[in-house]
């Protein structure tokens, strides 16, 4: 479906550009959601519905909410917004150009397959089996890592708050 691909690309790239160009952090966060949703759409187009839905659930539904929560708790609306000074344009533009040059020169050398095999029909079950059989140790390690991060965040928050 080329039309769907075009719409998704517009949403993803437009969202990504919006994140960088918006002068308000909150607007940037909402543009980021648009980019996340566009990427989720790509997963659906590729036949990975499970990954696509999880992308929406985790990134748009949790990560973006966390960003917004942090921004709103730490910043007031009266605070000055980011300016668009020539120095900033130069810095951001230069970094983007450097990254684009690196990616283009290195990605071109790699022989990418142009014909992909059709996705497996029951890939949700396949993901589950892969996670709990060959990849069970990394999966559990990631779980412990996330738990440690959670406990660490709690510890930091408690220290800041004093006795409570």
């Amino acid at each position, binding site marked *: 479906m080329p039309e769907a691909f075009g719409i998704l690309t517009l949403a993803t790239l437009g969202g990504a550009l919006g994140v960088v160009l918006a002068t308000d952090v909150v607007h940037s966060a909402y543009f980021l959601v648009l980019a996340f949703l566009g990427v989720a759409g790509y997963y659906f187009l590729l036949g990975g519905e499970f990954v696509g*839905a999880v992308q929406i659930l985790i990134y748009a*539904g949790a990560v973006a909410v966390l960003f917004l929560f942090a921004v709103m708790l730490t910043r007031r609306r009266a605070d000055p917004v980011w300016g668009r000074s020539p120095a900033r344009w130069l810095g951001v533009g230069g970094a983007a150009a450097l990254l684009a040059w690196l990616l283009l020169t290195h990605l071109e050398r790699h022989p990418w397959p142009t014909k992909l095999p059709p996705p497996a029909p029951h890939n949700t079950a396949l993901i589950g089996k892969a996670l709990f059989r060959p990849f069970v140790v990394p999966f559990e390690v990631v779980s412990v890592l996330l738990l440690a991060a959670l406990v660490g965040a709690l510890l930091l928050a408690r220290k800041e708050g004093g006795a409570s």
Partner: protein
Amino acid sequence: MGQPYLRLAAAALILAAFVLGTAAFLVWFERKLLGRMQVRPGPNRVGPGGLLQPVADILKLTVKEDILPEHADRPLFRLAPLMAFVPAFAAFVVLPFGPGLVSADLNIGLLWILAVSTVSVLALIAAGWASNSKYALLGGMRAAAQMISYEVPLVLSLIGVVLAAGSLRLGRIVAAQAHLWFAVPQVLGFIVYLIAATAESNRSPFDLPEGESELVAGFHTEYSGVRFAFFFLAEYSYVFLAAAIATLAFLGGWSGPFLPPVVWFLVKTYAVIFFIIWLRATLPRIRIDQLLSFGWKVLLPLSLVNIFLVGLFRFI
């Protein structure tokens, strides 16, 4: 362009009509029921039994002035009502009303509904933030805290159903309940789901994001006219969705004797909606700290116990 797009457009139009009609009917249903439960007649002036009251309300809301508060974040303020409604509508796309009666039969239907409905939290935060009003901001923050907290037990309570059915496809989940409704062996999961879903759709006794006595109207304090109507529409869509998922995942879906499947589906869904409205008429609003500690310290462990029990029974 061609056939698939035409079919999609037709499905979208039918669904839009259904969602609008359902929301309008639910407004009447809720007001009438609340009235009866509080020993008063409820709306009874416009049309037979007040049935046309929501039509009059919609007409009133559409002709009202669309007020934009000064110093509001204009693009976000304008976008927020749509952001609230679009995910609700997207969730309806995979909802089966009967065998084969579904716009898009995704094999991850249940996950899709859970995933897209989380996006509407962003709309409530946007509305609260963009209004530039302390009541709206407080309402938006409460909405975020509440919906993130109750999403966890909500999803975990449905994991038990997915485990027992072995599929995320809503049709397969209904088929797995041919002999016994999941509400019977997983009564714990069903109770956790009902409480979490009521909280997730910001309904009383969990309507803290718009608690009238404290926050005027919470995140939609500054909204009027059509934009306010969109928030209303989203809320009632979520009430219907919550009841529909309860029906599909725990109450055997559209299966039942004699009557056609669609009728059974609607009867069961409206029974759950009746229960949710009954809760509103009965219980006082709880406090935000009670709400959050109840979600994390009671509902979350209970939903984990439910998953453990389901796993245990499948294992033996």
